[in-house]
């Protein structure tokens, strides 16, 4: 027979659930507001606010269109540029990562620990430190304000952290697999393609996604190294949507959503990879 009253402990569980869920929903409010404001003309929002059920007839995508098309804002170009820079930086990185995986599987050099410490150090140092000399160097090399320059920079940065990142992922591939293949007579290339590569695929996918997201989200390097309008990436452009004295929030919210769409989609699809990477910080070896 089901109990007809709520026991004290069921009540406590219910209360805690309620508190946490309300918190989570409250946490989401800014995003909800973002969407709400982006699909209405701003002049309406100014008057009536967005904390209400919107008038369906006034819903519009104008803000988005404006953000993307208007040459003053030109988010479309920004989007394209971000895709180019992020994609190429990640591609280069994955190739480097694959080779690093090979090194891990085969080599066991004395300085490994020192190498890791150095890499970790490099990862943590502020981006600001190397930027001034790099800028001057790029200017001399003609790499300033070019995609190549930025891609190179992101790739180099990425190789450092991916080495560290892969170490956790690849620890579990036993050396004996490679050695057994060698004993059986497989060539190094075969070993690479047939054993190491397939086993590293989850790690490589994760690396690609993390790098892509990181490069896409970057603002500082873009500000320093990409100056002309046709080269600027989306993070730069969306920040420019904010006027000095007056802010058109319809435009800004739409622009924000456009610029976060890509990392968001990646996150929804590859959710596991994102969270696993961060969660690893919490677990002791």
């Amino acid at each position, binding site marked *: *027979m089901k*109990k007809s009253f709520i*026991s*004290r*402990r*069921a009540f406590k569980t219910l209360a805690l659930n309620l508190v946490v869920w309300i918190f989570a929903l409250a946490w989401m409010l800014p995003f909800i507001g973002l969407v709400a404001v982006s699909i209405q003309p701003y002049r309406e929002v100014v008057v009536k606010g967005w904390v209400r059920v919107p008038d369906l007839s006034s819903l519009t995508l104008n803000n988005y269109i404006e953000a993307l098309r208007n040459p003053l804002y030109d988010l479309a170009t920004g989007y394209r540029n971000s895709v180019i820079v992020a994609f190429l930086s990640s591609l280069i990185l994955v190739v480097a990562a694959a080779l690093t995986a090979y090194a891990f599987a085969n080599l066991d050099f004395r300085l490994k620990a020192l190498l890791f410490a150095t890499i970790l150090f490099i990862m943590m140092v502020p981006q600001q430190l190397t930027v001034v000399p790099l800028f001057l160097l790029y200017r001399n090399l003609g790499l300033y304000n070019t995609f190549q320059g930025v891609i190179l920079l992101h790739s180099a940065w990425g190789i450092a952290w991916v080495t560290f990142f892969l170490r956790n992922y690849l620890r579990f591939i036993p050396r004996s697999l490679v050695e057994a293949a060698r004993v059986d007579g497989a060539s190094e290339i075969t070993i690479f393609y047939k054993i190491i590569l397939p086993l590293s695929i989850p790690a490589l996918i994760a690396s690609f996604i993390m790098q892509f997201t990181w490069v896409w989200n970057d603002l500082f390097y873009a500000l320093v190294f990409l100056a002309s309008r046709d080269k600027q990436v989306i993070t730069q452009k969306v920040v420019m949507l904010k006027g000095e004295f007056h802010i058109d929030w319809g435009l800004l919210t739409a622009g924000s959503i456009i610029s976060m769409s890509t990392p968001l989609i990646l996150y929804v699809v590859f959710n596991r990879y994102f969270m696993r990477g961060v969660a690893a910080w919490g677990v002791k070896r």
Partner: protein
Amino acid sequence: MTSAFLKLDRVTRRFRNVIAVDKVSLDVGKGELLVLLGPSGCGKTTTLRIIAGLETPDEGRVYIDGVDVTDMEPGDRDVSMVFQDYALYPHMSVFDNIAFPLTVRRGKLRLSRRDIEERVLKVAKMLRIEELLDRKPPQLSGGQQQRVALARALVREPKVWLMDEPLSNLDALVRMQVRAELKRLQKDLGITTVYVTHDQIEALTLADRIAVMNKGRVLQVGSPKDVYENPEHVFVATFIGAPPMNILECKATKEILECPGFSKPLPPSTRGLQGKLYVGIRPEHIEIVSISKVTKEDVVEARVYVVEPLGSEYIVNAVSGGEIVKVRTSRELLLSPGDTVYLKIDWSRASVFDFESGRSLGKLLKALVS
């Protein structure tokens, strides 16, 4: 039976579409040690957790000392539990671990720090771990950790003491020592205890009564002697006893009981059972005889499959009619696989079980006559 100190009334618990605990009713007397025995997945641990309050039953009620505790929090039930992995907190000292049940309820129980210290020392002495009080659990051996877990469970002098396979992580030797001590401890303290295990030897040695469970149901509750000699279900018969009871698929007709490899004539005046049956005979109720001793009629001819020496005795696995029959003997016979042996069955000890349900139909000879 004494009036029940701990009572389960038709407790049921489902997980998705699986019935983990199926209308289980149990009465445990004050000071009694009841063992829940069964294979993994039989529902014994879930039942224990329901008593503890870590699970809530979908149906049924739980009573402790007359109080309906079914909806109460575990902490309010005045029970104690020893977990299979001991659940000792690695960052606290042994003393703090043992004191934990007291310190978290210090206000409610109105205990001073001195009181707590006293109780912890008392219990530590009982379990002979006084020198370990300053150490931390990771520094202790398995056996020591176990004692700490026991101490912690006793420090509050609970109404019911619950144990979830506490000995399974110990080495065989340590396990036997602790088993004996545990039994003594429980008797001395007189705390009502429910003990879960899949090891039937543990059950037989420790229990005042055993509740044999399978697939969420309690098949039989009885003293170790009862459960051993009068199993009420073929499952109980085979689960208890090592090596397990021999179960033979037989067919009874008016004149003859046909079993694998042999038949036994029945007295002409029997009405009795007909059709397919399970006949059960324990390995120690079969004797190996030399052919010259008895007439051929009373004896089953079988081929040796393998002999397992156990030090003071031997388990002879013999094949009769395609089925293996295990025989226990202390005589040192020089048998090899393939040899022919003659088995004399003590039919007065044989049990018979219903073929469909597995329920016991009593001792064979009686059942046939009734």
